């Protein structure tokens, strides 16, 4: 399992980020992303995952993130900025990571070392 810092992902363009995640997950790694993915990046990751599903090897990913938060601060309102604040994301191969329970602030998952 790799824990990826916010800084490492921030250096990447969204498409690089998605490619990096999918490559790591296909190689069998489970990733914990400190800052999480934006909703758009999650959608891109789902899309790319679908293109790579292979009946003989890769059945997809298990991804869990906390619901994102919309910035409703006074500065955001003044500047009329609508910022979605992302939170932690866990992503891994579907056959090695299984979510047991999830709520707004907790994710319980079962990890298995072998496919």
């Amino acid at each position, binding site marked *: 399992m790799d824990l990826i810092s916010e800084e490492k992902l921030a250096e990447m363009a969204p498409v690089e980020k998605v490619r990096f995640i999918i490559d790591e997950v296909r190689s069998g790694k489970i990733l914990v992303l400190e800052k999480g993915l934006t*909703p*758009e990046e*999650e*959608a891109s990751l789902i*899309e790319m995952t679908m293109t790579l599903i292979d009946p003989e090897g890769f059945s997809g990913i298990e991804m869990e993130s906390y*619901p994102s938060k919309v910035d409703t601060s006074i500065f955001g309102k003044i500047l009329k900025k609508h910022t979605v604040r992302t939170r932690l994301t866990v992503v891994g191969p579907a056959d090695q990571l299984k979510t047991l*329970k999830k709520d707004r602030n907790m994710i319980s998952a079962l990890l298995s070392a072998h496919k």
Partner: protein
Amino acid sequence: MGVITSFKQNFSEFFKKLFRKKNARIGIYGPPNAGKTTLANRILRDWTGDAMGSVSHIAHETRRARRREGVTIKANGHSITLDIIDTPGLATKIDFHEFMEHGMEESEAKRRAKEATEGVIEAVKWLDNLDGVILVMDATEDPYTQVNVTVIGNMEARKLPLLIAANKIDLPESSPGTIRDAFPQHPMVAISALEGKNIDTLYEEIAKRFG
């Protein structure tokens, strides 16, 4: 005289087309087997007398997005005309073995899995072309599924209206209150698309939310 009348008609139609408000495109989203096509069928039967597609207890029955234009819904004295898009169930994984557990041959299960992956891609792409979403959640399941979180996040990021339909309240184990507690920032209507329970309240909310 005939020429002038014809000119007037053409001119009038041209301006109607020029200034006609585009129907809002509303996508019906949700995880596989949440009841999206059952709801789409209910809406179409109630307002057009038609149906959208077939339903099944096997996941990924809808593998291509279906669009129905110009569905007029009347509620609370308001009338709203929508283009409704019934999308394939979103998922992060598709394993053909799950289809074989329903008695499918391996080749058929693999074909369905392949079509299902294409359907998910299509559903994701539609997110960029919508004016609002009805997110269908299975009220007997955990509301924090990744699909729900991703769809809600995408609508919030795009600042587009979202209406949650907490479906399957005809089942005794359903708990629509759990969905309301999970996503209190969005309007939610508890329904049974299958039995039509509370469907008028959903139409009122659709007219209010997407009108």
